[in-house]
């Protein structure tokens, strides 16, 4: 209805003008156009007497200079932007561009750029702003204990480190399931374990243990609450510790394949070399315990034993193979 009436009025207005026989420039009702330059000749000065469809005088204002241009360089940015704000091109004094480049040209500028508005920005978290936050929070904090001034002391007194993460989540509910995950890290050297217990512990935890850093990491995320996960992780650590100190009956059936490291005693390598040396009659005639002991006591045999152990434990490399070769040559030239 309203539109009908406006159209009708417009038409009437037009006819009225035409009838008056006005020469010169035909008056055209200019509707609102884009931000490009105004039609030439009409610098925004109001046409006297022109009325819009509602009968009120429309004022055209010159497009003002964006505020960003007038901002001083050394202003206090946290006050300008105290909280997370959507990106406003006129209010942010950065000449950013965003979006896929126009062909033969660069990315579109920030003015009227929807891409910049869509993404989250962290302009409210500049270092200066964070410093202010920290200063504001300081009265509520307690002092760091002065006795714990080095990392080594912290590790020694607090060997168990528990890591938990907090998330800020915006969804149907503010809770995230990731927030209840707990990582418990402890160095095995800080636990009281003997050789057998240590090996058993490493076998029990499997992949959770890192050889290079000697750190056992237990990750718990099976319980719904963080507190529950924390208790469960501590419980697991306790159980592992106590179990690894126990020796079961079936552990006596441990075979060579289960061993973590290569041991030369009673290995085929030892047997071979002793047989060879006996055949070479190095220690004189006879074959018995004393001959064996005598052979094992020789430096060449010890050197051979070291080279074989190194080769098996560390894996092959030029230097270890060279060492093995030297040891074999020495021992076979006896």
């Amino acid at each position, binding site marked *: 209805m309203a539109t009908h009436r406006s159209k009708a009025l417009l038409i009437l207005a037009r006819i009225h003008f035409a009838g008056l026989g006005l020469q010169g420039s035909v008056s055209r009702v200019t509707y609102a156009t884009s931000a490009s330059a105004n039609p030439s000749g009409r610098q925004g000065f109001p046409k006297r007497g022109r009325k819009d469809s509602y009968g009120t005088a429309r004022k055209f204002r010159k497009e003002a200079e964006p505020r960003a241009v007038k901002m001083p360089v050394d202003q206090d940015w946290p006050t300008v932007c105290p909280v997370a704000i959507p990106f406003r091109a006129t209010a942010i004094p950065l000449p950013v561009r965003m979006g896929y480049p126009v062909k033969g040209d660069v990315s579109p500028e920030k003015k009227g750029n929807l891409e910049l508005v869509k993404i989250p920005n962290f302009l409210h978290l500049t270092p200066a702003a964070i410093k202010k936050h920290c200063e504001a929070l300081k009265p509520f904090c307690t002092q760091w204990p002065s006795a714990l001034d080095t990392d080594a002391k912290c590790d020694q007194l607090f060997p168990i480190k528990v890591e938990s993460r907090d998330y800020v989540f915006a969804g149907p509910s503010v809770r995230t399931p990731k927030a209840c995950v707990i990582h418990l890290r402890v160095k095995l050297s800080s636990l009281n374990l003997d050789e057998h217990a240590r090996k058993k512990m490493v076998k029990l935890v499997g992949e959770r243990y890192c050889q290079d850093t000697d750190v056992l990491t237990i990750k718990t995320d099976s319980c719904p609450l963080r507190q529950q996960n924390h208790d469960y992780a501590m419980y697991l650590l306790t159980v592992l510790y106590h179990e690894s100190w126990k020796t079961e009956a079936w552990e006596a059936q441990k075979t060579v394949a289960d061993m973590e490291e290569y041991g030369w005693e009673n290995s085929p390598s030892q047997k071979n070399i002793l047989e060879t040396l006996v055949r070479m009659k190095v220690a004189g005639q006879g074959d018995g315990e004393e001959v064996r002991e005598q052979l094992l006591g020789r430096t060449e045999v010890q050197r051979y034993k070291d080279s074989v152990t190194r080769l098996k434990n560390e894996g*092959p490399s*030029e230097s270890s*193979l060279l060492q093995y*070769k030297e040891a*074999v040559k020495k021992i076979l030239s006896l």
Partner: protein
Amino acid sequence: MALHRLSLRLRPTATHVRSFYTSRVGQQQNTVAAEPETEPFSVFRTKEDDPAFHSEKHIGQYYNVPSSHIQTLFHHGLPWRYKQQVETFNEASFMVRQPALEVISDLKQLDPSKPVQRYIFYGLKGSGKTISMCHTLHYCYTQGWLVLHIPDAHIWVKNCKELLPSSYKSSRFDQPFEAAEWLHKFKITNERFLSKIKTKHRYIWTKREVTEEGRPLGELVDQGTTRVRSSSDVIGALMKELRLQSGQPGSDFKLVAAVDGVNALWGRTTLKKRDSSIVDLEELTLIYNLRKLMRNDWIGGAVITTLSQTGSLFTPISAYWPQDMLGEIGFDSMDPFIPISVPNYSEKEFESCYLYYLDRNWLQHPQSRTEEGKKEILFLCNRNPWTMEKMCCVL
């Protein structure tokens, strides 16, 4: 550049030779003056054809292997590509390299009364392990040793057309054709020993066929080549006889057991039994006997082997360390052994090889004869002998 200076340095020795000749044969100066020129002095070749006299100063130089030796000793031992090269160039030359020299110098000081030492050539693919082993075998052959050469142990663990249950032990399997073929080649290589060595045991093959004690070894070998059914057991008997007799006070021969691709003995097979289960390596007669030969419980000889990834089953391409290729069991069986590393060509050896190809007119491409071309070849093949040979084939 270095090559040019090297040839300048060597020139005085050539003229010295010339003057020596002229002083001895005074009147025939024309012919004598021509003599050093007909055999141009080359940096990459040496006239020393006897491996016994090769030393460090011959490293990087090629020496000629007489064709008679190729017919007998290397009847089946050379790599396939190298055999083709021999046919093309009409000559067989080995490059004298450090690994082979090391083993040869050890063999020169061998004490026949001590248990055998085991050598394993290892290295990257195509670095020259088989050729180094052939060089060492050539030395042994020229010194009159008995050469027991298995050119590729991998052939015995795959693609066997017929697998017979063994007549000797019911759980084992024979490979008659492979065994017969190998016996035939063994006969060609060691013809001279077959009548000299006598058997020490009595072997019963079937109800009617028996090899008595004291018969020449040739009879044993003939038994294997003619009666193909028992050829695998013949090989077992042959190895046993040679093992027992080598180095003993009565016999006058030394035995060198050479196996190319020794990692096949402790790897896996693709052979299947009648019920389609995979055959275990212990169940193959040939492999079982070869494993016994690889032990160091005999004296008076040497065991020279190489590891080979080419042709091996279920081994990753990048594996070349002895531990990886032999496996746990193989390593423990061969332990203690002397590992000999065969690296890629050194700079001098690369130069030698390049000059050799030039000399044989193998590098036809004009660009390859320039300095630039040489640098390109060096870069592309990274001094690996096999890669270089493959690359120069297309130039």
